[in-house]
């Protein structure tokens, strides 16, 4: 243990504790900018500098470990003067036109300059003198260099959390900036659009491309019939944008709000999540049959999930040799979109060209996904606009809806019914669990041998998790699976996906089925979810997802009555001709960089 004093108060902390942490324990909050709970220490913004009595230089509290007998002052004259200068310096190279910025009111630099009552800018405005780029080419992410404070959180996120390495620090001196390979647009490099960088950017330098105005235009156009779908993870995150604590389930209120915004039909992505399980489950069993019965040496196993567009783009760039292993199923969002402009108008007797399909996603990569050229199986753009959870909250505020006073409402039909299996798609391990609940029952006629249908081995926050289920006493037609240990792997966060795929490549990892979610925590930690994010917050959202699962009447995808209905009336059977046409897709190999 180390003894030190902070602002005159004695503190005792374990060796290795930083001054920042030690101060927190004594209830002194030292301001920071480049520091983030999810990331390694940087120590470059110098906002957190503190004074050590007897020392010449100020110390970065986030990067300096405590030492015996240290006497730290967190708010001395020297500290205040330095901190104010640092903020002023940052503002001098920052586009401080806050009224026009998407992050107005939610910007950490704004908060700091407010806190320190930075008044007239004495320093010279560097923004007007220098060149800076605003990159709007990606359909998912906007990068505005004039607002970058070079904290490098985005670079560390892309490197350590995601292992994608699309962003780097480039050049030096007054030309130093956060950039990509050859200063290309984010749209031209390996960026997977996962948006984790957006979640951690303290300013408006990295934000999602927004489509609010387009959606309002559609809603307010009397000739358009606007349907909206909501992803599982949105309902456990939306509350945070509207004044609630993390972990609140606001499903009913969200539906109510959406109706008040003027959407013609409020439907649920969870419906097509259940549909995905039917299609993908059948796909898995088909491949297993090819492997075990036909002994086909070319069958692509392991099968990997395909609902995470960040994961899809990642594998297209980094592991194109494994594209045959990816399920041909579209994501629930895209399945919904295809049906929204074929099945839905057919039942509702509408002209598909008048249907506008909008989705609310915890995800920024979904914006890219909706724009993929192959996502037009309906003959129209299957999903017209994707909004993030954050954008939805903004719409709710714009419409003057008092969210917290709303009473709960139910989804519309015909694509609004869902199950517990569908809602857990929002958490890492959820797709795997939903698939197992259905596949196991399909094969054996019995429920999965886990209490309450909660397959805990696939749950949790470890980056890569392995689980297996022994298959025995199968139904006649699945007898070839008797005695097979169905092995599964789950990864979340692309850095873990990379590790897993390296294992598959080398032969170390030998499984049948892999679920990958690009974002840490799964979709509930997605690039479109409320900011801030950290492990504690993601844990709370996870608990909410599983609580929502337990609260659902139906817990298994194959029991969803609307799913049963759509096969009977429209699709025929899983992997049938119509399914292939509307619900399945193909992928594109991309450059390594």
């Amino acid at each position, binding site marked *: 243990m180390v003894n030190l004093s902070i602002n005159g108060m004695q503190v005792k902390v374990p060796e290795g504790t930083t001054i920042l942490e030690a101060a927190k324990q004594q209830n002194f909050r030292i301001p920071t900018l480049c520091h983030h709970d999810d990331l390694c220490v940087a120590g470059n913004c110098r906002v957190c500098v503190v004074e050590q009595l007897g020392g010449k230089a100020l110390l970065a509290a986030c990067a300096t470990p405590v030492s015996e007998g240290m006497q730290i002052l967190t708010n001395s004259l020297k500290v205040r003067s330095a901190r104010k200068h640092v903020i002023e310096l940052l503002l001098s190279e920052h586009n401080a036109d806050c009224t026009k910025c998407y992050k107005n009111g939610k910007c950490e630099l704004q908060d700091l300059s407010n806190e320190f009552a930075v008044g007239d800018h004495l320093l010279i405005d560097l923004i007007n003198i220098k060149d800076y780029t605003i990159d709007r080419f990606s359909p998912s992410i906007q990068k505005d260099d004039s607002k970058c404070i070079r904290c490098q959180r985005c670079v560390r996120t892309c490197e350590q959390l995601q292992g*994608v*390495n*699309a*962003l*780097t*620090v*480039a*050049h*030096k001196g007054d030309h130093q900036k956060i*950039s*990509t*390979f*050859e200063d290309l647009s984010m749209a031209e*490099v*390996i960026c997977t659009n996962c948006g984790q960088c957006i979640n951690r950017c303290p300013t408006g330098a990295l934000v999602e491309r927004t489509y609010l105005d387009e959606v309002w235009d559609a809603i307010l156009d009397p000739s358009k019939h606007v349907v909206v779908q909501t992803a599982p993870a949105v309902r456990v995150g939306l509350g945070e944008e509207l004044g609630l604590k993390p972990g609140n389930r606001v499903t009913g209120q969200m539906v109510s709000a959406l109706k008040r915004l003027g959407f013609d039909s409020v439907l649920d992505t969870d419906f097509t999540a259940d549909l995905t399980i039917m299609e993908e489950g059948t796909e898995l069993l088909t491949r297993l049959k090819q492997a075990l019965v036909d002994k086909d040496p070319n069958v692509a196993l392991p099968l990997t999930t395909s609902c995470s567009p960040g994961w899809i783009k990642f594998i297209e760039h980094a592991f*194109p*040799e494994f594209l045959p292993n990816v399920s041909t199923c579209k994501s629930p969002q895209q399945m919904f979109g295809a049906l929204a402009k074929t099945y839905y108008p057919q039942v509702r007797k509408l002209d598909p060209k008048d249907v506008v399909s909008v989705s609310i996603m915890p995800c920024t990569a979904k914006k890219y996904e909706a724009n993929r050229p192959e996502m037009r199986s309906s003959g129209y753009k299957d999903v017209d606009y994707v909004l993030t959870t954050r954008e939805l909250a903004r719409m709710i505020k714009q419409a003057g809806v008092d969210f917290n006073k709303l009473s709960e409402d139910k989804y519309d039909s015909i694509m609004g019914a869902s199950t517990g299996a569908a809602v857990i798609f929002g958490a890492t391990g959820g797709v795997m669990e939903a698939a197992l609940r259905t596949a196991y029952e399909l094969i054996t006629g019995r429920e999965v041998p886990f209490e309450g249908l909660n397959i805990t081995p696939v749950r949790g926050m470890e980056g890569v998790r392995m689980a297996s289920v022994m298959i025995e006493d199968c139904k006649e037609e699945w007898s070839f699976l008797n005695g097979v240990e169905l092995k599964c792997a789950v990864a979340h966060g692309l850095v873990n996906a990379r590790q897993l795929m390296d294992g598959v490549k080398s032969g170390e990892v030998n499984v049948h089925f892999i679920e990958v979610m690009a974002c840490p925590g799964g979709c509930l930690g997605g690039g479109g979810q409320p900011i801030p994010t950290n492990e504690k917050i993601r844990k709370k959202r996870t608990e909410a997802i599983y609580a929502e699962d337990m609260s659902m009447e139906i817990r298994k995808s194959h029991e969803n009555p609307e799913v049963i209905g759509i096969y009977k009336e429209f699709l025929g059977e899983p992997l049938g001709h119509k399914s292939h046409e509307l619900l399945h897709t193909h992928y594109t*190999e991309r*450059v*390594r*960089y």
Partner: protein
Amino acid sequence: METIIENELVRELANKHGRTRESLIPILQDLVVSNRYLSKQDMIDVARELDISAADVFGTATFYTFLDTEVRGKYIIRICKTISCAMKGKNDILATIEDILKVRLGETTPDRKFSLLEANCIGWCHKAPAMLINDTPYTELTPEKVTEILREYIKK
């Protein structure tokens, strides 16, 4: 599958220096010796060879002034602009070279033979003004001396 065209030079350099992160800068340095700058394709190939990201290669290269990622000529002239050389007539030298080569500071001649750049203190302050042409230092420069030096290079 993407057709990967073999980059023989990069392969050779990786064999020479190794394929760890530590090998990156020596490889880039040798690439610059051969090609006078780092092309987009070369950086992509180095990244693949070392199993690191292309962004990382770019970010590292652009940090170092001599690891140019812009096209440069066969002979890169770097005139020192730090105080001692500035005091001793570096501007005259610069003007002379601009006049002879018909390029401005920062530019490369159309035949890609010469690039004219400035550098910070190259360590010849007592014999200022000084410059480097590739790795060779030239000191105690006068407009006449520089004219002669360039003439030799133009002949090459």
